[in-house]
């Protein structure tokens, strides 16, 4: 396949974008938003083509209740809480895990949770396991490989396709197309997105993380607008297969089951998360430590929920870049490098190409 240049792809996108209305294309992966923001792609594309960051940041959507439970667990003498580095600074009304000063360790892989458990046989190791399918499959793999009896899991995994369906039903967001996440798709398969064209008439195309590949994905979505199709597209076929990684799916299915769960700033979304299956209840920190659900309290001024649902851009938040910045995040979307607020903050500071041309600051919400 001959590769098209950025110029060719941009031109194609201009030709394919309908002139008479706004077209809204959402990405659901922090890495996609990263490429879009840092490449300055928005300024090259038609003004009526909106590239909207969606729910692509697992740290951002992890419920406050789970953060609070993790903080409380880390303060127990008999517990060591282990989790990914991003989770330490996520704010809650009881502070953050790091600020709590309890017993916690940063891990970069579920393997390290096992290692820490083996090295500390007298402590209870609680692995605060979060993320979408790309971290769920590794969590399942580690369970499959056998873990010591003092390792428990506080499971806060979320399912990407489920939240996307909720978004589609949310009339206020009005999505015309999805850029489906590259590596989540490597696990679930590009066919997992067929429901969007088939049931809702909304094209979905799997794309990789390079600017050219994303532009190709966007042009593919535009070409599919208004066509009745039953399958999702895939311009990242070098990594993503239609059926995905079957072994990973089997392992996830063996250890986890689908549940109705909360998303921070959004609320309960049916069948959108995973919990440990009944058989593995002995490993489930919620059961073992009798963790209850703490009712979420809104962070004053933070509009993360609206941003995740594609109703507003980060710069519409009154705290953005002022009271909220990556050094002292007021809301969850500013913490992780996958969070839209964090990405937009850094884009502005480092590259000066925040798409301010469109005057998001005053408009905030998307306007047709």
């Amino acid at each position, binding site marked *: 396949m001959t590769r098209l240049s950025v110029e060719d792809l941009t031109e194609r996108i201009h030709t394919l974008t309908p002139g008479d209305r706004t077209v809204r294309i959402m990405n659901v*992966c*922090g*890495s996609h938003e*990263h*490429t879009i923001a*840092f490449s300055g792609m928005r300024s090259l594309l038609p003004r009526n083509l909106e590239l909207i960051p969606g729910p*692509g*940041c*697992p*740290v951002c959507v992890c419920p406050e209740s789970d953060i609070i439970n993790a903080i409380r667990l880390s303060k127990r003498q008999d517990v060591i809480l282990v989790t*990914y*580095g*991003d*989770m*330490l*600074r996520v704010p809650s009304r009881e502070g953050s895990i790091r600020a709590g000063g309890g017993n916690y360790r*940063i*891990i*970069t*892989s*579920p*393997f*390290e949770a096992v290692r820490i458990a083996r090295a500390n046989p007298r402590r209870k190791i609680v692995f605060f396991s979060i*993320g*979408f399918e*790309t*971290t769920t*499959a*590794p969590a399942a*793999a*580690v369970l*499959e*490989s056998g873990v010591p009896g003092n390792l428990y899991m506080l499971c806060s995994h979320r399912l990407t396709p489920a939240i996307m369906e909720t978004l589609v039903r949310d009339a206020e967001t009005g999505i015309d197309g999805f850029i489906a996440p*590259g*590596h989540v798709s*490597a*696990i679930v398969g590009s066919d997992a997105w067929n429901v969007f064209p088939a049931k809702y008439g909304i094209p979905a195309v799997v794309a*990789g*993380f*390079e*600017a050219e590949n994303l532009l190709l994905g966007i042009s593919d979505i535009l070409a599919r607008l208004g066509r009745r199709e039953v399958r999702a597209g895939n311009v990242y076929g*070098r*990594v*993503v297969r239609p059926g995905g*990684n079957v*072994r*990973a799916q089997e*392992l996830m299915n063996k250890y986890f089951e689908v549940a109705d769960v909360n998303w921070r700033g959004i609320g309960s979304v049916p069948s959108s998360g995973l919990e440990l299956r009944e058989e593995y209840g002995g490993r489930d920190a919620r059961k073992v430590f009798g963790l209850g659900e703490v009712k979420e309290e809104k962070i004053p001024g933070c509009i993360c929920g609206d941003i995740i649902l594609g109703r507003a851009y980060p710069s519409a938040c009154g705290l953005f870049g002022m009271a909220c910045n*990556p050094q002292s995040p007021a809301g969850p979307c500013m913490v*992780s*490098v*996958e969070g839209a607020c*964090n990405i937009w903050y*850094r884009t502005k500071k*480092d*590259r000066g190409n925040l798409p301010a041309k469109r005057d998001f600051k005053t408009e905030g919400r998307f306007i047709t």
Partner: protein
Amino acid sequence: MCLGVPMRIVEINYPAATAEASGVRREVGLHLLPEEEIAVGDHVIVHVGFAIEKVEEGLADEIRRSLNEAMGAADGEGSGA
């Protein structure tokens, strides 16, 4: 945390393996890939220590390039995992 990193497999003791990227070696799990499909020298995408898919070398290079750009920009912001 969600970032997939391309790495080259340098040693296999299935399902354990050692992989390398930019001169740094790391233990990775091959649990999510069938044993017969993976060999020393293959490139894989690694998420939180596990290979989730095999890729060709050319693509691994491309992903690495765009990742370096992204991470260079993220320097000093405390990305954690």
